[in-house]
């Protein structure tokens, strides 16, 4: 049997635009950026762009699984603000008892992860067990988390204690071997996500669930639990993103994470994941996140068009990236 496999040529699809589309778009943006500003490819700028992509990137990796499994989560932006708020309040409250140091920050991180998991579980539970439409559940929780953080902050801004923040700050600004921590964490999350999507039963099952729930059910997949898990993982990753976000500015307010959900969803779709589910690829999502960040960066660096039009240019590129994939799809 083994020799039969060995003798047969491996089924290899032609390399086509559908696969390459987002990569080409990214390369084109990089070339454009480099030609417009000599600092574009500088170490500092590359680090800035990658590090600021990390929050949405980490969340978008989780979103890839949710969307692949046929779901959607509109609440991640508010959830991030809420988790950040809870984390800051907890850290401030724990300082008197724990003092400032690694245990304090570690406790804060655990609280952030736990809050994220709980928030994701709540979404997932309502969607998979109570069977309410994902769009409605997460639209509702989007408002709930946004209000909660406004309430926690009493309408203002929650700020982390200054000394705690100074201690925590390196988690965003420092790094390993010259690579900033957020970039490292984003890379690790993306690699694990890609492995999970392509090489584990979990990823395969997500795609099956998104493609046809009935087939998944008849194939002895625990459909409800699987769907719940996608939301819990997304919540966990929102927690991870928040852990990287809080040390950056040391604050959270009602305007934290506004529209992150849409950026994350856009990145997922630009990357080639199918919005209605059934097919997802994590590496595409990473490309999508980078494309979105680079557009902003280039527009800021170049000042070639009126800043009033930034949103329009972003919109055009997002739509183009998706159209490019569609056309090449029908061509193959």
């Amino acid at each position, binding site marked *: 049997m083994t020799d039969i496999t060995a003798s047969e040529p491996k089924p290899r699809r032609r390399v086509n635009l559908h696969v390459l589309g987002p990569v080409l778009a990214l390369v084109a943006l990089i070339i454009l950026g480099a030609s417009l500003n000599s600092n574009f490819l500088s170490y*500092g700028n590359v680090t*800035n762009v990658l590090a600021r992509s990390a929050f949405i990137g980490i969340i978008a990796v989780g979103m890839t699984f949710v969307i692949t499994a046929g779901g959607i989560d509109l609440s991640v932006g508010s959830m991030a603000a809420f988790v950040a708020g809870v984390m800051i309040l907890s850290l401030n409250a724990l300082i008197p008892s724990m003092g400032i140091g690694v245990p304090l920050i570690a406790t804060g991180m655990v609280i952030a992860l736990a809050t994220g998991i709980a928030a994701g579980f709540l979404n997932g539970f309502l969607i998979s067990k109570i069977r309410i439409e994902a769009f409605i559940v997460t639209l509702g929780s989007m408002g709930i988390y946004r209000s909660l953080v*406004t309430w926690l*902050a009493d*309408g*203002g801004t929650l700020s982390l204690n200054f000394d705690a923040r100074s201690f925590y700050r390196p988690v965003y600004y420092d790094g390993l071997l010259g690579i900033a921590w957020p970039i490292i964490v984003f890379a690790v999350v993306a690699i694990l996500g890609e492995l999970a999507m392509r090489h584990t039963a979990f990823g395969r099952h997500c795609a099956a669930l998104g493609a046809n729930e009935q087939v998944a059910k008849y194939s002895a997949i625990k459909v409800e639990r699987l769907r719940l898990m996608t939301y819990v993982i997304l919540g966990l990753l929102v927690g991870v993103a928040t852990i990287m976000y809080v040390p950056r500015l040391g604050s959270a307010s009602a*305007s934290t994470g506004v529209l992150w959900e849409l950026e994350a969803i856009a990145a997922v779709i630009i990357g080639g994941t199918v919005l209605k589910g059934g097919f997802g690829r994590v590496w595409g999502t990473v490309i999508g996140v980078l494309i979105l960040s680079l557009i902003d*960066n280039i527009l800021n660096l170049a000042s070639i068009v009126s800043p009033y039009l930034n949103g329009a240019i972003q919109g055009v590129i997002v739509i183009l990236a998706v159209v490019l994939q569609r056309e090449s799809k029908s061509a193959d």
Partner: protein
Amino acid sequence: MKRRDIFKGAALGLAVVATPVVAQDEETKVIGVAIPSATHGFMGGLNYHAQEAIARLEETYPQLEFVLATAGDAGTMVNDIEDMVATRNIDALVVLPFESEPLTSPVQAVADAGIWVTVVDRGLSVPGIEDLYVAGDNTGFGRVAGEYFAENLSEGDNIVVLRGIPTTLDNERVDAFSAAIEGSGINVLDMQHGNWNRDDAFNVMQDYLSKYDDIDAVWASDDDMAIGVLEAIAQAGREEEMWVVGGAGMKEIIARIMEGDPQLPVNVTYPPAQIATAIELTALGMVSATPVSGRFIIGSEMITPENAESFYFPDSPF
């Protein structure tokens, strides 16, 4: 009603007997207050001051009742105002229009119904509707900052500007700022929108720092944005190179000015407490014969290390 408000109510009962406030008439008057919800530091401060003023006035004037509604968008604000007129029978309305255009005709209808109208901060698009107009000074806000830049920088110095959300208000500020530095020889390298948001301002400032090797000062035009800007500068390790002027007097920023932080030499006020002034004036008009109609522009002042203490409200969320 929160529990502490009930206690306040009880205290008030004693106060009524004790205080010699002579009311104009004993009939209860209802004042509606419609403001945007606290989605941003400044609005958070505004909400705080509104609630605080209402609590204070309810204590002083037992014959006054207040209805406070916060709205996340212009449509909701219109609904809130209609509800106040229809169900709470308000005698006066204090409104900070979410946007000028959509609020103009609903507020006109309120005024036509004989209800006292006080407009705060943002004018309506048709003049003369309101009985009382209380506002911060957007032109002054830009001008005061611009004058400081003109005085403290020399010809050929480079600055960058972070603008807010593209609105009339933002345009007025930026135009006044530009006019004030005109002729000073200061070189404005770039103006991008940071949307009055810390994260956006952080990103924009990071990009400015990548793009320009020589920046002498930053006009962040808002204290939320200033926080993001300072963080980006710290990350680039260029704190010594430039100073930052924000705006609106956030308490954390004021505190640093009080300490004489060289990075934050001054600030310009755009007081969120203007809502309190508007509510107080309206209340005064309701309970007394004092003429309060007209326009009250609360000028933008320079906050310096010397006078910062008088602008510091540690209890305010902003």
